[in-house]
């Protein structure tokens, strides 16, 4: 398995800087779980962040800050307890298909996910959505079938987790990330043999073209 299509370096740098919102970060972190090359690049970008912070001029801490910090360290305050990462609720019986951190956001591995109908045999699981915020969801496209035709207003990144799809003459296998912007009306088609499961993140709501998808889109909130 060799990954051919990666997130842009500029995404890795912004992930490292903490400037991507959670949905984009989820895709980068999930890709990094499967891609050593991007994992190494991301570590380098984080190291650049560490050097930039360390090289900057220091600002004096208040008097007694060290003692206050020790007290905090030993008695964490509720205000600042970092929210826990979503945890996987299922016990694992075999090597999971969904790597962390994605499995935590989905609530478990593929078995037992609550898939919702998208039309034309395709299903989805919403992971993150909010007004104006980037949306993340899992897609399941039946083997040999197209994703309901769609365009979008902003950027869409789609990462393959199981199976493969082809789009515009390119093949995307496990770990590959396809970037599609608003200019592209694309038509991914799952390869025969196995359902294709993807993590898809978009800037703006998708505009599905199929009749069924257009009829239900206002109601299912994707």
């Amino acid at each position, binding site marked *: 398995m060799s990954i051919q299509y990666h997130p842009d370096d500029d995404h890795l740098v912004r992930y490292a800087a903490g400037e991507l919102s959670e949905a984009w970060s989820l895709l980068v972190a999930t890709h990094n779980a499967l891609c050593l090359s991007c994992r190494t690049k991301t570590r380098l970008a984080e190291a650049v962040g560490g050097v930039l912070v360390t090289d900057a001029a*220091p600002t004096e801490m208040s008097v007694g800050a060290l003692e206050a910090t020790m007290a905090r360290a030993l008695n964490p305050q509720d205000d600042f307890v970092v929210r826990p*990462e979503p945890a996987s609720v299922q016990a694992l019986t075999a090597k999971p298909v969904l790597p962390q951190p994605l499995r935590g956001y989905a609530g478990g591995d593929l078995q037992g996910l609550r898939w919702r109908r998208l039309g034309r045999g395709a299903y989805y699981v919403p992971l993150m959505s909010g007004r104006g915020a980037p949306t993340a969801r899992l897609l399941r496209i039946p083997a040999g079938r197209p994703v309901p035709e769609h365009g979008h207003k902003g950027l869409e990144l789609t990462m393959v987790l199981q199976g493969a799809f082809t789009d515009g003459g390119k093949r995307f296998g496990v770990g590959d990330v396809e970037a599609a912007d608003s200019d592209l009306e694309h038509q991914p088609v799952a390869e025969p043999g196995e359902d294709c499961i993807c993590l898809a993140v978009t800037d703006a709501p998708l505009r599905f073209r199929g009749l069924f998808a257009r009829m239900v889109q206002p109601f299912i909130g994707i």
Partner: protein
Amino acid sequence: MISTLAISQASVTPTLRAASGLGQSPQRDWLNDLQDEEPPRDPDQSPDWNSLLCSVATQDRAAFASLFTHFAPRVKSYMLRLGSDAAQAEELAQEAMAAVWRKADRYDPERAAASTWIFTVARNLRIDAFRRQNHPELDPNDPALVPELPVSADLIVARKQDASLIHKALAELSQEQREVLRLSFFDDQTHMQISETLDIPLGTVKSRIRLAFGRIRTMLEDKE
């Protein structure tokens, strides 16, 4: 060292302050701070921060005090640059260092320098405090993870990412390339905002980030 700066102080701050919604920050500007930057440290002269951080995992308070003295004031500057006022920055710096104490057992010196790890702790705390979001990260113990390189090869990677090499590589970047990297890490600006701040097209922001990062990677590989 940086002698001239292409963008004016006034052009940087308003967008940031408006976007952060975190109240008024002091009129301190990081572009001025750059001129106070310390000269490159000789790695042989500076304390071994990585070992000190490992000692913190064994509840070594003296090691923590040394790390605190060096890193807390820098984490505070980081928070100030990202729009905290002085009181918030102090609070966040203390909390970040408290998290360093609590999580030090997760630090792996083969994978990251102490400065890198402390930066990521501070970054994640900032995202949680300001955006109420998580920063999703891979789990090194996940069975679905594609395994790391063997340790010997990874040690080379760790050495390549040595802080002093990166420091030198940053100094060799063009001013424009350094600028977009600093804005990415320090100004909580989107690409669009950076584009407006520097008055360059959006595509140029992205390509400068790619070029700057690519040059750093090349420089570190050449120095192997």
